C-alpha cells in the first residue's frame, strides 16, 4: 500500500479505479431534491470516532463534504442528523466549509446539523420523524449502521426519497440492498473520500488496497490447496504471525 502511494506521489503510475454507481448517484439525488424543492437528509451513521468502527464515520463525513458542496451550489437544503455528540462539531465545520467553498456562506444554517440523541432508537425515531415532516426527496446514509438501518431505509422509502446507503457492517447490508436505490458495499464507503476527491495519490492507495486483496486471494488459494493435501504449514505460519 505504501509502495503504491510512493509510486503515485512520484508520478510513476497513474492508477484508475472502477466506477462506483452509488457515489455517482449522489449528484442525481441532490439534483432531484433541488428540482422538487424538497430537502436532503444525510446521516453519517451511529458509530463513534474513537472506536474500531470510527473509519466508517470518517468515510461518511467525507461524503457529507461532497453532498453539502453540491447542495450549496444547487441551493438545496441538507439536514444532517447526528447520534454521536463528538461528530457534530466536525459535521458542522464540514458543511460550513462546503458552503464557503460554493460561495454560499449566507445560506449556511448550523441548525440543519442536528444532534438528535445519543441513544440508538431515540435517534432512529428522530430521523424517521424528520424524514416524514420535511418530506425529504433524497436520503443519503453512509457510515456505521446497526439495527436502525432498516428503520431509516423504510422511513425514507415511505417519504418518497431516492436513497443512497452504504455501510461496512455486513449484517446490515442486506437491509440496505433490499430497501435502497443504490447501495455501497463494505470497502466502497471507505474508498468514497478518495473516489470523490479524484486525488491520484489517494486513488493510488485504493489501488494498493486492491493489490492487498489480490495477495489475500492468492494466500487463500494456496491455503486451500495445502489443507486439501493435508499440509497445515501455512495455517501454522499465519497463526504465529497473528
Amino acid at each position, binding site marked *: *500500500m505504501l509502495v503504491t502511494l510512493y509510486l503515485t506521489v512520484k508520478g510513476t503510475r497513474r492508477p484508475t479505479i472502477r466506477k462506483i454507481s452509488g457515489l455517482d448517484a449522489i449528484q442525481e439525488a441532490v439534483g432531484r431534491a433541488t428540482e422538487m424543492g424538497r430537502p436532503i437528509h444525510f446521516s453519517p451513521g451511529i458509530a463513534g470516532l474513537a472506536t474500531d468502527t470510527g473509519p466508517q464515520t470518517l468515510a461518511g463525513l467525507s461524503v457529507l*463534504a461532497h453532498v453539502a458542496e453540491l447542495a450549496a451550489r444547487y441551493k438545496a437544503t441538507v439536514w444532517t442528523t447526528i447520534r454521536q455528540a463528538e461528530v457534530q462539531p466536525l459535521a458542522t465545520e464540514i458543511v460550513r466549509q462546503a458552503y464557503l467553498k460554493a460561495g454560499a456562506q449566507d445560506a449556511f444554517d448550523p441548525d440543519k446539523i442536528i444532534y438528535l440523541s445519543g441513544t440508538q*432508537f431515540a435517534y*432512529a425515531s428522530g430521523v424517521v420523524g424528520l424524514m416524514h415532516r420535511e418530506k425529504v426527496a433524497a436520503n443519503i446514509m453512509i457510515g456505521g449502521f446497526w439495527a436502525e438501518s432498516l428503520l431509516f*431505509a423504510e422511513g425514507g422509502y415511505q417519504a418518497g426519497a431516492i436513497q443512497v446507503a452504504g455501510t461496512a457492517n*455486513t449484517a446490515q447490508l442486506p437491509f440496505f440492498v433490499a430497501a435502497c436505490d443504490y447501495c455501497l458495499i463494505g*470497502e466502497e464507503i471507505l474508498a468514497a473520500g478518495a473516489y470523490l*476527491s479524484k486525488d491520484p495519490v*489517494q486513488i493510488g492507495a485504493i489501488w494498493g488496497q486492491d493489490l492487498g*486483496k489480490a495477495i489475500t486471494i492468492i494466500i487463500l488459494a494456496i491455503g486451500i490447496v495445502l489443507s486439501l493435501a493435508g499440509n497445515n504449514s501455512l495455517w501454522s505460519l499465519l497463526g504465529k504471525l497473528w
Partner: protein
Amino acid sequence: MSVAIRRNLPLVITFIAGMLMIGDYYIKVPDFNKLVADWLKFVNVAATFAVVIGMVTLTRIHARRLSQHKEGWHNSLALIIALYGLLITGLVLGEGKFTAHPTYAYWFNNLYVPLDSTIFSMLAFYIASASYRAFRARSAEATVLLISAVVVMIGRAPIGPAIWSDLVPITSWIMAVPNTAGMRGIVIGVALGVLSMGVRVLLGRERGYLGPGA
C-alpha cells in the same frame, strides 16, 4: 489563525494521535503507556463536552419552534420538558446516580424503555415490507434471493423439518457455504479498506473529513 495553520494543525494532531495509538500497541514502556492512557481519557472528556454542544443545538432548534408556534410545537415542548426534567432529576436530585432516584427510575422504566422497545419492534413490519419489494422475482438475482430466502426461512422455522426433513441440512449449507463465503469476502475487503484509509488519514492524504478543499 492563518490558512496554513488551520489546514495543517488538524493533520499534525491526527498524525501524533495515530502514532501514539500505534506506539502503545508495540512499545511496552510504562511511562509511555500511561501517557497514551491519559490521552484516551482526554478524548473521552472532550467527547463528553461535545454532548453539551449537542444539547444546546437541540434546545435552540426546539425553543425556536416553540416560540414561533410552528406545526408540531407541542412535540418540541415535550422534548424540552423531558430533556431538562430528567436531567435535573437525575443530576441534581439523584446526585448524578440517575436511575438510583425513584422519580428518574419511574420515568425511565415506564416511558423510555417501552418507547425504545416499540421503535425496535417496528423492525418486524419494516422487514416484511422491504422483503416484499426485494423478493419480487423481476430479475435472475432477485429470483435467487427469493428462493434462498424462502428455503432458509422455512428451514429455520419449526414447520420446515415437519414438511421435509432435508430442509434443515439445505438451510445449514446455504448459511455455512455461499452466505459465509460472501460475507468473508466483504469482511476481508473492509479490513483492507480500513487499513488503506488509516494510512491515508495518518499521512494526511485523506482530508475529506476536514471539509471540501481542506
